[in-house]
């Protein structure tokens, strides 16, 4: 191996170590009984914490809640985002650049800024504690991202593709479902991926919109911090919360990089 090759190998190992070290620590802690219980001495090694998650209804429910609103959010972003992305990719119109800037402005709005009025607004329309509410609010930052990503994928397809479908007598909605979506499937996957992870890791909105029920996984973890925190259980829950994201990364690994090519 050449000297440059060795240097690269060393660089990679150092970088991988840096990224993986906190995760290894979390794994190790999650497999250790940090508080112990009857028949489970402190420091014993095993799946004790994971069994604990399955046995606690509040933790089980939180996983279901998170999955529900994150999936709903992905659906909302795709349904609202696809037509907008198509329009921006295919036509020029009065105010098109301003519309993009408008979206950008809200992508960069810190959630804390909007948290209070969103709480009051959603309380008024009865969407507190509901997964639909959180899924809608997460559109603030995910819809702009979805539109950008989908737009760049649609723009890469020649216009003649649309015209062929229309000549064949397909309506616009038929064209969307039968032609456009299959043609930009990797783009839909990448958009879904980014919406999924940004919604999955978000905490501010998810916290204020769940007052008494529908707590997400992030809140369930926060609730585990008490006077005597069971670090093993916290870490088991954290490791658990990584599973869907890591699966998503694996699924889109070959397309993940194409999404953010943006024209303004």
């Amino acid at each position: 191996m050449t000297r440059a090759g060795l240097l690269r190998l060393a660089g990679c190992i150092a970088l991988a170590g840096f990224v993986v070290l906190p995760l290894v620590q979390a794994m190790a802690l999650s497999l250790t009984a940090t508080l112990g219980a009857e028949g489970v001495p402190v420091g014993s090694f095993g799946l004790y914490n994971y069994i604990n998650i399955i046995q606690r209804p509040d933790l089980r429910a939180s996983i279901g809640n998170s999955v529900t609103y994150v999936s709903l959010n992905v659906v909302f972003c795709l349904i609202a985002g696809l037509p907008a992305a198509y329009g921006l990719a295919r036509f020029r119109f009065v105010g098109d650049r301003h519309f993009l800037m408008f979206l950008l402005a809200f992508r960069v709005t810190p959630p804390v800024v909007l948290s209070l009025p969103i709480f009051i607004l959603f309380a008024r329309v009865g969407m507190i504690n509901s997964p639909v509410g959180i899924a809608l609010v997460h559109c603030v930052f995910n819809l702009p991202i979805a539109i950008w990503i989908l737009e760049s994928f649609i723009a890469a397809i020649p216009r003649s593709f649309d015209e062929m479908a229309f000549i064949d007598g397909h309506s616009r909605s038929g064209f969307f479902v039968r032609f456009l979506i299959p043609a930009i499937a990797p783009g839909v996957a990448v958009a879904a991926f980014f919406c999924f992870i940004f919604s999955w890791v978000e905490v501010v909105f998810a916290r204020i919109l769940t007052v008494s029920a529908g707590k997400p996984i992030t809140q369930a973890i926060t609730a585990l911090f008490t006077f005597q925190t069971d670090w093993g259980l916290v870490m088991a829950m954290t490791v658990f919360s990584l599973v869907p994201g890591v699966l998503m990364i694996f699924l889109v690994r070959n397309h993940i990089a194409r999404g953010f090519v943006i024209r303004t």
Partner: protein
Amino acid sequence: MKPHNNAAWALMIPAGVVMIFVAVLPMLAVLNYSFHDIFSLDKVLWVGTDWYKLIVTAPRFWASLGRSALFSTLAISIQLPLGIATALMLRKMQPVWATVMLMCLSIPLVVPTNMIAGLWLALLRPEGLGGQILSALHLYLDYKFTAVHTWALILLVDTWHWLGLVVVLAYAGLSSIQPAYYQAAAVDSASRWAVFRWIELPQISGALWIVMLLRLVDSFMIYTEVMTINAGGPNDATTFLSLELGEEIKAYSYGTAAARAMVDFVFVLTLVWVFVKLREVGKQAAGDIP
């Protein structure tokens, strides 16, 4: 060239309606609160621009703004070069291994925000792996009471969280460069730096611009990680804009919190605007080069 058709606005309607409901209306509400003193939702008193005057005349606010600006600058100047260098290195590797590294670097992106700092604090406990490594190296990390250490830890954690995004996007840009460019550079026996400056950098600038923008605004308003690590301490040394705002929301002073939120929002928007303008100037300059 795209045809001009104002009927395309009809396609913006679903997205527009959602954004009006979840973003525009709440934003208008914040603007409205910022001119009022809110005791309860029924007892509201008009105070005009008093909150704004109070905020911009407070030295603490300007100190927080300075700290936020410094943090953003440091975060970007560490993460961007490191991310580009990593992407360049990955391009030299076999694709399979490059993909493995990309996946590995993306994992921190899917960690819930409130556990990012928690993972590092668990690692750095004296009995944790990181704590043991540090003590073997005779290093001592005092992030609770030494400001420099707190800053270093926050920067480290933030870099851990976001480096993957920079690498993934830079790598994507580099992968799309046609081999012909490199061959031409080799014929001209261009230096490694020249290849980077005139071939690679222009090709990845589109991806870099969006990652820079995202990093800029997200680091400028960083909250959860800083709050977990040391709650703005020691002695306000890591009290950023968002932490001041968080204090007021927690204290239920909605009027002043709303005014502060508006001020912060204006700063973020100004940053974005300057950024977009710089980008346009840069594009024109690049266009002048044949």
